[in-house]
């Protein structure tokens, strides 16, 4: 029997036949919904080796290493109750945790609140850049729902839709998208002035297709204004929710897009790296979840015109939904993404 886990982190014992069945089911789910090719027999055998390996920690063969981008490095320390200033946290990531890249971010990791403190954030970025070496991005979540009442100025589509006010709900979402776009442009200009290497938009389209539209427009304008700006776009999920349903970017409807199409749209707008996300189903096993995530991400990496980094962490990329992600699953998911998915990074 093989010791593995469920998507909620609970340990389970499975036979190799049961694992093979779950892997095949996960592949089928991704392939059917994402309209992407299934993993090959060779891929499945390789994944079986990784999942069934008796060692607790599994890693890549020499030469298959990836590079890592991050989301909100300072927040990770704040969350643990460590009262350390943001520049020192990034120095710790560089020199103690050996991070490949750095990401400055405010504890309230959303575009709207950061607008109020741009000068202070510029200060932290400029100070950090003097003493660190890796590329330093400034990260925010677009988090478009913050622009709705009562936190924001616009009507809430999720209240208008049940009331049958369809046109008003669609219009409200586009007003939010415009406001989000303006805040992202302000942020990009401020961070370029501070010297940052670029931006990371994290959990993009969590607010649906209109949020994705606002982000793509902002990326397109930032690319035109700052040709050397590095723009990393991490997505929120494997499927763009159609809260609006009719929004198009460059003639293509955004609602319903899976990772391969999401990456293609990010590239079309001018992004440099796309972060593909596949959410973990807590009721299914780790083998099922990693097989499903891998099938989506491998296809995205194959067809994307820009590098693709798979999101591998709490509740994404096959990893169980846990505040303390188990290293046995994290290391296996990372190894599979590198050696089978041929991702450009994580």
């Amino acid at each position: 029997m093989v010791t593995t886990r469920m998507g909620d982190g609970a340990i389970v014992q499975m036979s190799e036949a049961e694992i093979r069945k779950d892997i095949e089911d996960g592949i089928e789910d991704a392939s059917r919904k994402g309209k992407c090719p299934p993993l090959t027999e060779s891929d499945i055998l390789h994944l079986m080796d990784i999942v069934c390996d008796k060692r607790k920690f599994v890693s890549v063969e020499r030469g298959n290493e990836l590079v890592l981008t991050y989301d909100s490095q300072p927040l990770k320390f704040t969350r643990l109750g460590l009262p350390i200033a943001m520049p020192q946290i990034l120095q710790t990531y560089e020199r103690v945790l050996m991070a490949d890249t750095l990401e400055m971010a405010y504890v309230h990791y959303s575009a709207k609140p950061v607008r109020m403190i741009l000068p202070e954030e510029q200060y932290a970025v400029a100070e950090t850049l003097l003493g660190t070496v890796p590329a330093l991005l400034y990260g925010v979540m677009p988090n478009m729902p913050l622009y709705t009442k009562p936190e924001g100025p616009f009507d809430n589509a999720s209240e208008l839709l049940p009331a049958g006010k369809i046109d008003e709900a669609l219009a409200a979402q586009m007003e939010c998208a415009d406001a989000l776009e303006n805040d992202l442009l302000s942020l990009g200009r401020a961070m370029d002035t501070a010297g940052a290497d670029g931006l990371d938009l994290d959990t993009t389209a969590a607010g649906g297709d209109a949020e994705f539209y606002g982000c793509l427009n902002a990326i397109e304008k930032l690319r035109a204004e700052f040709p050397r700006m590095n723009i990393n776009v991490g997505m929120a999920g494997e499927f763009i929710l159609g809260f609006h349903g009719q929004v198009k970017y460059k003639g293509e409807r955004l609602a319903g897009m899976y990772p391969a199409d999401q990456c293609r749209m990010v590239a079309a707008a001018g992004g440099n790296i796309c972060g593909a996300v596949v959410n973990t189903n807590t009721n299914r096993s780790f083998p099922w979840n990693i097989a499903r995530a891998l099938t989506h991400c491998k296809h995205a990496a194959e067809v994307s015109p820009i590098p693709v980094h798979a999101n591998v962490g709490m509740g994404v990329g096959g990893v169980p939904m846990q505040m303390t992600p188990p290293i046995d699953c994290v290391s296996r998911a990372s190894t599979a993404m590198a050696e089978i998915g041929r991702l450009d990074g994580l």
Partner: protein
Amino acid sequence: MQLSKNMRLGEAKKYVADKLGVDIQDLSDEVTMREVREDLDIATVFMGYGHASRGIEAKSNIAKLLGIEINCVERFKQKTGMVLPG
């Protein structure tokens, strides 16, 4: 190189390895890369107490080695009069 030139992983590794004069597998070898980084003066996690470049000094050397523009390095050059604002 992925961020600044949209290079895919394999292409980026080869580009950097060629520029540094090492094999691709050396890029993730702690011993080899410490020596290479010291020789090229592009900083290691232990920057020493002496003359080694650190922070933005090292980034300036990296930009020249890799043939890329780094935003903060370009701004540093402008502020210190090393180049005129473009």
